[in-house]
């Protein structure tokens, strides 16, 4: 039976039932930062291999950025490329998103658009924070 109170079916991540608030927050933070899961890795080996290469490339880009060698197009291009990859990885590894208040515990199965929205928004926040931090510390000079 479909549950119409949620946009998609309910999901139950491994940490959803924990009673410790600290553990829940830590697990969610880890979930936001680490898109892979053991289960997903087994299913997506080819994709993961390509992903690791992409992750290394993205890391290199950030190192270059920290050295002040990065141009706008490259930064945005890598951010975008990484985000697309992360969507695919998460759909295989952690295919759920939170529903309702961010402090709540309602999780639901993510469809492709949910995951695009989640990854896009999360990476925008992470990217903007990193970008502003690097720029204000003088590590990053953007050339138009």
């Amino acid at each position: 039976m479909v549950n119409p109170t949620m946009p998609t079916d309910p999901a139950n991540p491994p940490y959803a039932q924990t009673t410790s608030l600290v553990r829940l927050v830590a697990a969610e933070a880890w979930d936001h930062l680490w898109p892979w899961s053991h289960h997903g890795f087994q299913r997506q080996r080819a994709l993961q291999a390509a992903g690791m290469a992409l992750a290394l490339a993205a890391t290199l880009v950030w190192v270059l950025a920290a050295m002040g060698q990065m141009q706008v197009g490259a930064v945005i291009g890598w951010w975008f490329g990484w985000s697309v990859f992360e969507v695919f990885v998460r759909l295989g590894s952690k295919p759920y998103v939170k529903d309702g208040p961010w402090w709540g515990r309602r999780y639901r199965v993510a469809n492709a658009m949910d995951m695009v929205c989640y990854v896009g928004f999360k990476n925008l926040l992470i990217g903007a924070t990193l970008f502003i931090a690097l720029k204000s510390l003088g590590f990053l000079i953007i050339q138009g």
Partner: protein
Amino acid sequence: MKFLAALRNILLSVALTSTASLALADTYEAKLPDEINTAPELCKYAPCAEVLPGATSFSERKGQPRYVEGYAEEAGKKKLIGYVMLSTDITDTPAYSGKPVITLIGMDTGGRFVGVKILKHSEPILLLGIPESALTRFNQQYLGQFVGNNIEIGQSRPEENIIGLDAISGATVTVIAQNQVMMTSGTAVARQVGILKPTIREQAKFRETGAKPDWAALVQEGAVRRLIVKPEQVGLERGGEPFIELWFGYLNHPDLGRAILGEGAWRNLMARLHEGEHALFVIRSGGKESFKGSGFVRGGIYDRVQVRQGADSFTFRDLDAVNLYGIEAAGAPAYSESSIFIIRSKAFSGAYPWKFVFLGNRVDRATGARSFANFDVEYWLPDQYLEGGRPEVVKPDAPWVRVWKTRAVEIALFAALLVAVATVYAFREKLTRRATRKNKWPVNAFKYSAWVISIGFVGFGMLAQPSITQVLTWFHALLFHWQWELFLSDPFIFLFWIFIIVTVFVWGRGLFCGWLCPFGSLSELLYKVGGAVGLKRFQFQLPRRWHDRLKWVKYGVFFGLLAVSFFSMGLAEKLAEVEPFKTTFLVGLFNRSWPYTLFAAGLLGLSIFTERPFCKYLCPLGASLAMPSTFRWFGLKRKQECDSCKACAVGCGSQAIDEDGRIDHRECLHCLDCMVLYTDDHACPPLAQERKRRTKAGLPLTPIGPDGYYIPIKLVPVRADAAAKN
């Protein structure tokens, strides 16, 4: 034949007018020669003659800040007829794009503006919609104006001696920045050449204490200040060492002069000064760049340092510099360059704040082009060194503050509207419970009022239509030059975006899109009016399968614009014409060429027959807000029976309820019709069924709970004592 000729002429003129507006703007991101920023012969690279009519020859750049003199030939002799200045030689005030509008300005010897020419701008709003000629027309308002006049954007206020300039609708921030550029540039040159008399300030009356503070104490109390320029601030590689580190301070005060120079050196220095002359010291404790530069060798002017007090600038010639032989104050840093500079003007006063300015060049590391940049630090003699303390100084309001002050009433009304709509929506359940499927006025009265106010006051009145172009502009400003002042210069858009960001996270995009977006409101109002005047039988919804396909188009448009903006902001701005907002509200349906008018009018016309076609299928702004709406905190309520019941889905104008009764919060526009049904015991099938059952069984109809069902009747066992009484 005459008919054919007339027809040909009409077609030709239509084609010309339409293509003219589609043509690329002339000076948008125009490529200027690199030398224009640095070459002594400015007029070899810039069309100086166009802004100083009658001039046949021009001097090299001179003065500080830089300008050139223009001459006419009269009886074989050169006669000075005016001055030409490049705005970026004087100020780097950025416009809405975060980049300056590079302007060539001509002024005659009487201080009247005689020519203005935009050489380069990066303003997206002037690409399409508002033609570049609007900025040219705006600039023409300066012609004939005296540089010393109080010129502001807005209405003239003769009682306050303020001359008003007509703004460009939809480009307020750009023209505010442009006014600042014009007046700052004109005033700076007019003061240098003596057209504007310097402000005479009351001289400082020093309070002597006899104290002899050391360096640390001088720095702590602000009697000695430091100016640091980092390499990255001038476009160089980031490094550990500063580009330049300078310390400076005022020497006329006996306590300070003695503490810094020592008794003998200070007395010698004071003996050299005449009345109204002032001395300050400068030392370089870091960096390799010389603050003296080489300009004083060539032209006798120190072109890297300057003092500014109010609108007056004080530059130093070779005769204004005296050797500094040593710093007496204990704990002073080691230094590798030093000088004492003398300000020879009664306009300067040690009692008032002033700025020490280091004038530099910023190098674009991508192109190697240099542009003007200055770095300053304010200095104000500490309280204890002045008789009666520091005088009261009223600093003029920043341009954005003036905008907020002059439009305070409208801003307050707008803020009240936003708060009122959010409050009404927060209490939506109280309204939906009062409404029924047949009488939705308890909700609609508020919603329709919001629409009407949004269209009239917000859209046509305040021109506060949020747009995807603002999102793109912010993104680029974040990358290049973020300035809060720029965004604060348009208070309505600024407040609107705060409202949008907050409400999208709390409730989703529907509150903005469904209740307050001026174009969305206009679109749905047309649909409602169409239905009310008898066109209901022609009104339709797209079949579900087509709706489910077409709703993705708007996300494609959004991502397309975002992708294009990474490569060309200008092209993205042009493509953003997919939003008919500019045509409808900012410029006006009848003020644009026909393709735009046809597009906007077509969408509005279609809105009469189908609900919000633009919002559902095309709007990139709606798409960009829909994505975070996935994670809104509080959605609309559903019951388990909604999985098979179609009552709400059938009436959902935004077609946001799927065949399983689930609401797609990305598509929902918060009309609240489904929430009205949720508690309507005559319209919601599970509720109606329960009502009938209870009525038939003679059971009471309890209130409807937050879960949308009648509060259950629970049978409680009768207590023994109560039973005994009976």
